[in-house]
C-alpha cells in the first residue's frame, strides 16, 4: 500500500513583521498536521510567529522559458528607480 504523506511547502513570518518567506517543505497527512510539523521542524530556533502551509501540488509556478518575456521588460523601465532622477543637493533630502 502506497501511503506517502503529501508534500507541503512551508512559509514562515519571522519576528520583525516581514512577509512570510518560503523556508522548505515537509510531509504531513493533512493541513492541521502540516502546521504542527512545520512548527516542530522549522521553528526550533525561535524563527517564526506565523506559519502558512500549502500542499505542494497546489502551487502554480511560472515557467523558466518565460523568463525573458516575464522579467526583462522591466529592466528598461529605469525611471521607476529613485536614482534615475538627478536632484541638486541644494534641494535637500528627498
Amino acid at each position: 500500500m502506497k501511503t506517502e504523506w503529501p508534500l507541503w511547502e512551508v512559509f514562515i513570518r519571522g519576528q520583525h513583521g516581514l512577509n512570510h518567506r518560503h523556508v522548505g517543505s515537509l510531509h504531513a497527512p493533512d493541513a492541521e498536521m502540516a502546521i504542527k510539523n512545520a512548527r516542530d521542524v522549522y521553528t526550533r530556533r525561535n524563527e517564526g510567529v506565523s506559519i502558512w502551509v500549502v500542499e505542494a501540488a497546489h502551487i502554480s509556478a511560472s515557467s523558466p522559458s518565460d523568463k525573458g518575456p516575464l522579467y526583462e521588460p522591466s529592466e528598461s523601465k529605469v525611471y521607476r528607480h529613485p536614482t534615475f532622477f538627478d536632484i541638486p543637493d541644494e534641494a535637500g533630502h528627498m
Partner: protein
Amino acid sequence: MTDRDALFEYLLRLGDNTLVLGHRVSEWCGHAPVLEEDIALANTALDLIGQTQMWLGLAGDVEGEGRSADDFAMLRDVWDFRNLLLVEQPNGDFGQTMMRQCLFDAFHFDLLSGLAGSTDDRIAAIAAKALKEVTYHVDRSSETVIGLGDGTEESHRRMQAALDLLWPYVGEMFMPDAVDTALHEAGIAPDLPALRASFDTRIDEILRQATLVRPDNAYAHSGGKTGVRHSEHLGHLLTQMQWLQRAYPGAAW
C-alpha cells in the same frame, strides 16, 4: 511533616514526572515512524527535560542541602523517586507512547493551569512557562491519538490496546495524599480530585473522535508518586540514566 518537607516532596513529584517521561520520550530519537514525528518527539522531550531542571532545581533550593537537579536525577535510587507509575511505563509501540503522552498531557495541562495561580511565586513562574509548552503537547498528542484511533483497522486496534493497558495508571494522577492536601490548603497547589472532571471531559471527547472505548476498569495502581511501590521498569531506566555518574563518581562532564 513540616511545610517545607511537604513542599520538597511535591516538587520532587513534579520534577520526577517530567524527568522520567522526558527520558522515555528521548528513547525514540532516531527510531520514529517518520522524520516529522522524530523531530516532534524530540521537542517534547527537550521541553520536559527543561522543566525537570527547573522543578528539581527548586527542590534543591527548598531542601537547602546543596543538592542540584543533576544530583536528584543521577544519584537517587528507585525508592526515592516520586514520579507517577504512568510515566515510567515502557514506550511500547508508537501508539502506546502517544496514548501515555496524551493521558499525561491532559492531566499535566490542568495541573499546571492550577499551579500557575500558586501563592508561591517561584512555582507560579515555572508553571506559567511550562504551561505554554504543555498546551502544545496536549494539542499534538490528542490529535495523534484521534488520528490513529480513527485511522485503519490496525491502528484502531493498537490504540484501543494501548488505552486498555494504560488506563489503570490514570487514577493515581488524581489520588491525593497528605502532601497534596497540605499544599492545596496552603494555596500552593490545586485540589487534585477537582481536576478530574476537566480531565474526563477532555479525554472523553478525544476518545469519541478517536472512536475508542473508555475501559470499564476503574482500578487504579498506585505507589509511584509516594515512592512506596514503583514498577520494575523504573530501575532499568535508572541503570541507563545514571550509569556514568555511578561508574565515575565525582567526575565533571
